[in-house]
């Protein structure tokens, strides 16, 4: 009985100490959040002022960087983090000259180095952040490193890299998929199609080459792209799939693609 009592006492002490530890961590986390919120509240007006002067007052970037306001805060980690997030967000919302100015600031301020540093990190989520920042800011210099991530084991990193390649190279970026032997699930396909749709493509080459792939998911992806971009020139290849050894899944998708393509072209094909 005494032995058990000692064990229980040890467990009680352990539970109490753990409670104290968790409580301390909780308080630290809560205080950190409050502190960070305060910092952001302090930095946001400064960032707005700096970026406003670059974007709308045509202030040269180097002057803004040399300004006392920028110099007083730029060394702070939280400031850089908030500034980087703001620039990336603005770049997503604006276009043309505004984006060129933002890209110029991204280079000159050295924020680009932070993104490259993240890309080379060993933590997959930091790599994801780096890839997103570089691709949003249209930095093509990182493309070879980004392409390497396509073969990473982590699904999120893989997807982020695929999206970035399309964002930076447009339809040409899809060529990386030719060597792809893994399954491209519906979620990846949906993201890639979304990215292509938002790439302001002018002339889209035929996606029918995907239909010859041995990777079933790539064939389905090709069919979906054909349907999305109304590529009626691929009708013959789609019909061929119906009579090939393709799986039921592929044949069903081929049928759906035919249904989605403009009806007149299908009618003409059937007639011939």
């Amino acid at each position, binding site marked *: 009985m005494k032995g058990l009592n000692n064990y229980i006492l040890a467990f009680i002490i352990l539970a109490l100490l753990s409670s104290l530890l968790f409580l301390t961590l*909780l308080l630290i986390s809560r205080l950190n959040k409050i502190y960070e919120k305060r910092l952001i509240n302090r930095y946001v007006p400064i960032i707005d002022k700096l970026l406003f002067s670059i974007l709308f007052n045509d202030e040269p970037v180097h002057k803004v960087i040399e300004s006392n306001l920028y110099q007083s805060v730029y060394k702070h980690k939280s400031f850089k983090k908030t500034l980087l997030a703001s620039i990336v967000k603005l770049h997503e919302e604006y276009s043309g000259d505004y984006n060129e100015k933002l890209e110029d600031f991204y280079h000159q301020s050295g924020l680009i180095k932070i993104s490259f540093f993240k890309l080379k990190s060993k933590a997959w989520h930091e790599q994801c952040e780096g890839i997103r920042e570089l691709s949003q800011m249209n930095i093509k210099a990182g493309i070879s490193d980004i392409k390497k991530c396509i073969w990473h084991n982590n699904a999120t990193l893989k997807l982020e890299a695929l999206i970035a390649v399309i964002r930076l190279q447009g339809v040409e970026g899809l060529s990386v998929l030719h060597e792809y032997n893994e399954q491209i699930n519906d979620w990846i396909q949906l993201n890639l199609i979304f990215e292509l749709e938002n790439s302001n493509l002018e002339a889209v080459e035929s996606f029918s080459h995907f239909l010859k792939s041995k990777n079933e998911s790539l064939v389905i992806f090709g069919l979906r792209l054909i349907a999305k971009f109304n590529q009626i020139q691929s009708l013959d290849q789609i019909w061929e799939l119906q009579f090939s050894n393709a799986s039921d899944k592929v044949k069903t998708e081929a049928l759906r693609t035919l249904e989605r393509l403009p009806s007149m072209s299908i009618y003409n094909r059937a007639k011939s």
Partner: protein
Amino acid sequence: MLLNIFIERAVSVYNAVIFFYVILISSSYLILAIISIITLSRYLKENSFINYKIILSSDMAPHLSLIAPAYNEGRNIKENVHSLLSLSYTNYEVIVVNDGSKDNTMDVLIKAYDLEEVKYDFTEKIKTQQVKAIYKSNNPAFHKLVVVDKYNGGKADALNVGINVSSKAYIICIDADCILHKDALLILAKPFLEKSDEHVIATGGVIRVANSCVIKGGSLLKINVPTNMLARVQVVEYLRAFLLGRMAWSKLDGLLIISGAFGMFDKDIAIKAGGYDIKTVGEDMELVIRMRRYMIENNLKYSVSYIPNPLCWTEAPETFSILGKQRSRWTRGTMETLWIHRRMFLNPKYKILGLLSVPYWFIFEYLAPIIEFTGLLITFVFAILGILGWSYFLMFVLFAYSFGIMFSILTLLSEEYSYHQYPKVSDFSKLLLAAIVEPIYFHLFIVYAALKGNWEKIVGRKGWGDMVRTGFNKGKQSTA
């Protein structure tokens, strides 16, 4: 002399067995918590890169039927249906099944949504109570809404009617009184897209306590900690169960339950498995197990997903009387489900479900209150006989109490690091206080309710019992 030695030995053995059981149950909680925290942390990191909005514009998104059974929900039904119709999703319909309500549920729906009886063809794939009529709205703004009026048959029967009427490939079963996050369907649909190479048969979501939250027009505007202590304790309890329990079971591929208040299922598999079982009050857990059994017994590759995001908010009981009925029903549901699927117990054919999940539910979920009560009873007898080791007993109680508090604080820490839904310091202090009083104020009652559930099952009591809802942001009201 011999009797004394025997008694002493028996007491020692009893103490050792109870000690071993408590250590085992505490360790299992800790192991599940560690797995949950690791999984949750990874999920949150992945989730921060996801743009759910792209699902909105895609025709690849799964087509969904939201099924909401309603029984005497007249007071809240209008705004609850409005909330369901305003979700961010393209391909979905809302099927409200009025399960023979005795109040004005049907009248409210007809008036609020300009409903008209229509001829609606559907096949009765699952046998149910007779449908009286099916209504659609004359207002194009409510084209997604289908209202089914049927004879009373219970929640499971109403859900089965919803499955029969559904025209989409996936069903989402929710309680009509739940408030869903605007992006709930987008988030719930993602696993079905993500794992297109295997068959996702179900996805479960987290249920959060909505008492004292500000809800307007069926939308959650502000999250508050409940003012009522009983509901507040349930906030901690729900967080513990959903964040530190089910997350781990999902990771281990051993999830047995998807809450009846919010879950998404592959309709075809749900029908093939036989739909909801109307004979049990634990129809949510029972369906998940039956669907999983169906897949395993037919050698079909499948998975069950779990989403930890706070997507569904519900009203928790605020009085011991209603809480007692709810928990007694949960116990009966567990008993019935475990009995129906007793074949799975320690059966390697069902892999982790048979070897771990079902035995765990039996030993640590179902038996725990019975063992606790038996322990208290024996302790009482020992005290009367004068053979109780008081120091051991007190140390034991202190350990149970300190472990309970430690685990609840770990739960609050997980919430702080993950979804941070209670940012106000005052709210956090209230939850901490709830965690401290829970083992005394709440836990003993839960043990009592579970025992009552056992008794009711033994004497053959069936059904859900009367439920009283306060209603969101409304005064007290009564519905049966």
